[in-house]
């Protein structure tokens, strides 16, 4: 379990993090969303015991990053957004070095390393020099490295950044496998639909403040507030638009003559929505379709961060 209490990081008078509070249960996949410089990497660096917070504390399975940093290090697997590799070291030696750094015996490492390379689809690159691998392969190798000591918590800072679509899909598949293994995963990404697909919870950070936290659907509902309805109809669209405008729960009605549709925002309940549809049918409006448009995470993110600013 991860618990962050009043975490603040100041550089002079600038707040990189401002009173972050967050609790994540074991096995949760948490997506951290935010613009560049919002405070995602700062939070992850503090959790990885690489950066000292100005105030507040963070706990990983009950161990404080302030008072028990060495215990925290044993429980986390950290993958930074930017990282380098050692020249002249082969992929299996790279993992062997980090395995030894976690005190794993040579016998165990010999068993573990082929399994990890298999997990990240790099078995065929076992004897290749690390600096000669492609960016996507290095990212996957770094992920394998972060798993070498079987940590309960994975902190992945932009693991898919700079990857081509294929490498991104491969990375996503591996993360899904890890989710299946019951790991608690904290992941930051700019690719929001990917986070929505993978994460149990998301947190939106802006200007060092956690401005929203919850499940993806909760966040969407909490922030969208209104549903976006599209009605496709036959006949005079102006009349259709006027009909819906008269409803007290309807706002922002727009005509799309080229698509024969009318769109509007609806803030009534689901029952109200059913009644609205019935009323429209009773008024002899020839409805072809009446549908709710899904708001994607990107729209939500733009909406939230716009409000925060």
């Amino acid at each position, binding site marked *: 379990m991860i618990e962050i209490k009043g975490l603040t990081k100041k550089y002079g008078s600038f707040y990189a993090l401002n009173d972050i509070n967050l609790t994540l249960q074991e096995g949760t996949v948490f997506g951290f969303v935010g613009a560049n410089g919002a405070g995602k990497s700062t939070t992850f660096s503090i959790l*990885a015991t690489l950066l*000292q917070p100005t105030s507040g504390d963070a706990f990983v399975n009950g161990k404080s990053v302030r*008072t028990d940093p060495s215990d925290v290090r044993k429980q986390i697997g*950290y993958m930074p957004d930017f990282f380098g590799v*050692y020249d*002249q070291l082969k992929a299996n030696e790279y993992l062997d070095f980090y395995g030894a*750094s976690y005190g794993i015996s040579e016998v165990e490492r010999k068993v573990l390393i082929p399994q990890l390379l298999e997990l990240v689809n790099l078995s065929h690159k076992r004897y290749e020099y690390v600096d000669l691998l492609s960016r996507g392969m290095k990212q996957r190798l770094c992920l394998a490295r972060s798993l070498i000591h079987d940590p309960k918590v994975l902190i992945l800072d932009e693991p898919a950044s700079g990857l081509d679509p294929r490498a991104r899909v491969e990375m996503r598949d591996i993360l899904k496998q890890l989710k299946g293994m019951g790991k608690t995963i904290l992941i930051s990404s700019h690719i929001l639909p990917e986070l929505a697909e993978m994460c149990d919870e998301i947190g939106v950070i802006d200007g060092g403040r956690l401005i929203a936290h919850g499940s993806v659907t909760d966040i969407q509902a909490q922030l969208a507030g209104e549903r976006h309805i599209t009605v496709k109809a036959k006949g005079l669209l102006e009349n259709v638009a006027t009909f819906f405008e008269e409803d007290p729960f309807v706002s922002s009605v727009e005509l799309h003559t080229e698509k024969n549709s009318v769109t509007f925002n609806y803030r009534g309940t689901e029952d109200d929505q059913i009644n609205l549809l019935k009323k429209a049918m009773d008024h002899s409006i020839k409805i072809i379709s009446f549908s709710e448009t899904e708001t994607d995470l990107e729209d939500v993110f733009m909406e939230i961060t716009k409000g925060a600013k």
Partner: protein
Amino acid sequence: MKQVFSNPVLVKEIKLRFRSPKSFIGILFYLIAMCIFVFGFILLTTQFSGTGYFRPEESFFMFTMLTYIQLGLILFITPGLTAGAISSEREKQTLNILLTTAQTSFQIIFGKLTSSIAFLLLLLIAGLPIYSMVFLFGGVSPGQLGIIFLYFFLTMLAIGSIGIMYSTIIRKTIVSMIATYGTMIFLSAVTGFIYLVITGMNTMVSGSLSSSPVGHFFASINPVVLVLTLVSPGSDTFITDTTKVDFPIWAGYAIFYICITALAIFISVKKLRVNMKRTK
């Protein structure tokens, strides 16, 4: 001891160092230079002096010259090997990952230091067969050679620790290099100059030599002076006479460099990771 040699950083550094052809080329050129000096000296002495043989005094002179060459090697190579040990990891963006492993700060610093020292020791050991040529002609005892190598080791350890310390506290390798070479020049040249100035001023002010512990201290911490006192013990008496302090140079040198090594390693270990407990 097993734990020392299973230090992951030490093992990795040695592996990487010997995968690079630079290390082998370095050793090759060092040995070539040593051979040119030794065999050139013997050739010049035997062929052109007209005697046709090599006397123990000449062997001793060759030994002294070789010792100074080795000292120069240690003083100039050690900063280059250690001053980038941590800062280059930082520049290559590998340090953060290393710091999140279960290794203690001491293990990381120790691994970095010992890998650099091990390479220097290899250089010295590789040169030993050439160095040992002096035994063929007499004039030098194996014990004397042993003591000199012991002091070489201490000097390497101290300068190496200083290099690692600068590399830990300074972000950029180039600045860390400059700071380490600056410290090395201070210890090997400036201290000797300060000793000369202090004893000279002492004589001028009082008209005769008076007690000068500060002068003795600066002479004691100078590696060039130390080697001089080791190869020709009479020079120790000269320093005692000029400073009126009867304390062996070798002892002062050993105490100072052991303290410097311990202090530099302590600072490096403390500064490698951020202090998470500190509150502002």
